[in-house]
């Protein structure tokens, strides 16, 4: 694509803009600021998951688990060892905080990446439905493990996390994430991910190491999810294992599906849209002039997720910006009324 040469400059520009914007963040309503930061975090999550689900075709339902690991590891490091670090480096100022924050975020990301490796390995033997359930299982196992770890508060949650996340951190990382993923996919090496999605057997036949691509996708996706988790923890200052459950994974999955699996721009857009929608729904449940039933549905947003998912799959499975797989019958074929055979038909 044409923007290949200016990508580096776009990245730099994005970082500078977010730094400048961050200076003015005091002028925005704190609630809106929080939402904008959440949007950024969701973009990172969705773009990471898109690498796994969209570009590599591995259906992963446990993304919240990676986020949780990143959140807890970074929170633990900054809370337990932050004071020691500041003593060592000689004071709490912008520089030392930045170093600490970068350090804990990367630590969280790496921890999540290790988890991504562990989850990615079974994915080599599993396809489709089985992989989905195993990743779901891993997400739940991670959550249960955290819940049973008293050192980080267990079911009571972990509070008192320092509030380091600002617009600058969030959006520079968003920019970096998008840059990395897009550059990766656009490269010669990166085309390999797409081949794994499109036809694994053909890919192996031409010498693509599908194993390496699948594991890389999981590890990278998990790494970014871990960083997003760290940002999240240092924004809300309180985290609880129940906030990283299957529902959270599904929220991110919906962003990826809505945006179109395999389109970074699409999932970014979908992440923004859905985060805003979620917040709006929170308001709707407060409008007293709406009939009770609509308010209750709004309050129970998972019903809406589920209907959105079903409607999307029935009406527009490629999401907003994705593409339909171009195999088999052309899309506009004549509608012949005949019974469709199940997929294992010869």
């Amino acid at each position, binding site marked *: 694509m044409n923007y290949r040469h200016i990508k580096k400059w776009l990245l730099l520009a994005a970082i500078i803009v977010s730094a400048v914007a961050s200076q003015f963040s005091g002028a925005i309503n704190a609630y809106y600021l929080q939402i904008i930061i959440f949007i950024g975090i969701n973009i990172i999550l969705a773009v990471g998951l898109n690498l796994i689900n969209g570009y590599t*075709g591995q*259906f992963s*339902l446990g993304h919240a688990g990676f986020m949780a690991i990143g959140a807890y590891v970074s929170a633990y490091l900054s809370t337990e060892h932050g004071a020691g670090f500041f003593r060592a480096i000689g004071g709490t100022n912008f520089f030392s905080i930045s170093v600490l924050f970068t350090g804990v975020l990367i630590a969280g990301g790496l921890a999540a990446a290790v988890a991504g490796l562990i989850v990615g390995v*079974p994915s080599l*033997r*599993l396809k*489709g*439905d*089985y992989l*989905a*359930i*195993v990743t*779901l*299982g*891993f997400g*739940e*196992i991670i959550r*249960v493990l955290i819940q*049973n770890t008293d050192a980080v508060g267990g079911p009571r949650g972990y509070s008192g996390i320092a509030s380091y996340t600002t617009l600058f951190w969030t959006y520079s990382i968003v920019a970096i994430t998008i840059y990395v993923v897009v550059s990766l996919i656009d490269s010669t090496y990166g085309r390999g991910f797409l081949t794994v999605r499109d036809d694994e*057997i053909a890919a192996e036949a031409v010498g693509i190491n599908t194993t390496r691509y699948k594991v890389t996708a999981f590890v990278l996706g998990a790494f970014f999810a871990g960083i997003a988790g760290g940002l999240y923890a240092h924004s809300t200052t309180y985290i609880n294992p129940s906030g990283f459950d*299957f529902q959270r994974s*599904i929220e991110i*999955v919906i962003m990826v*599906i809505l945006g179109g699996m395999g389109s970074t721009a699409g999932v970014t857009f979908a992440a923004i849209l859905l985060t805003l929608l979620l917040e709006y729904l929170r308001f709707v449940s407060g409008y007293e002039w709406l009939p009770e039933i609509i308010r*209750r*549905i709004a309050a*129970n947003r*998972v*019903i809406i*997720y*589920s*209907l*959105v*998912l*079903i409607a*999307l*799959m*029935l009406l527009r*499975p490629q999401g907003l910006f994705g593409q339909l*797989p171009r195999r088999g019958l052309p899309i506009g074929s004549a509608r012949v009324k005949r*019974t*469709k*055979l*199940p*997929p*294992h*038909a*010869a």
Partner: protein
Amino acid sequence: MSSTEFIQQLINGLSLGAFYALIALGYTMVYGVLRFINFAHGDVFMIGAFCGYYLSPRVLPYFTGGLTPLGPVAVLILTMLACALLGIAIEKLAYRPLRSRPKLTVLITAIGVSLFLEYGGQFVFGADPKSFPELMPDRALEGTGALTITTTQLAAFIVTIILLVALTFIVKRTRLGMAMRALSNNPTAAALMGVNIDTVISFTFGLGSALAGAAGILFALSYPSIDPLMGLLPGIKAFVAAVLGGIGNIPGAAVGGLILGVVETFVGGSVFSTYRDAIAFALLIVILLFRPAGIFGRTQVEKV
């Protein structure tokens, strides 16, 4: 552990396993005919329990005096019918239009249906747990010595065995059953032989859902606290059981369910009791890595 404790745990395990077996049968049948894992199946189990909850007060008053024992049976049959209809409706609305689409699309739809049933259930029934009515008196049986077998456990065993026998009869001795097996084996040939694909698939869904509904009622009798999210964990465990037995294999699902029930009960009674739920996942990962075909499954040759 003494031998009495061992046998007691075994009985409890088989009792738990019976529920998993009933749900697993639904998974395995649908996979057999459609090569698709119906994520929403566990939630049909939940709906079955709630059907029982709402039907009991309306149905039981008609069965007084000498007919009292038939009351719970009526509730069971009505629930199975309702769940069968639900299963058929879900297939028709959400899965049939997508039959020619990639597997991923159907999988996502199934997740959507599952979430819809769970949270729709929360919306309609309320999220708080309800107390399932006592359809039959729950006493320990006399004369079993040191072992405790409750009437509920016995009833669950008996109903499960009856349903299993009925299912085997349907699958092996009726034309529809033969059609199911044909469809599972080779859909093109089945269609050429005059099998109505849509009808058979609907029937399969209905049958599997009816069994899940029955499991819902039996489960609620033993664990009377029901809530709309109760189907998620048993659903996943039943899926593990189906895979353990060899997905697509009907006796395998039953055996897998029993094995899982026993393993889970023993783990629950041991030092690792907090990991009782995780054992199912661990088992799944182990099977899928070392013997993905399951106990009775045949390894599928993938033709390129």
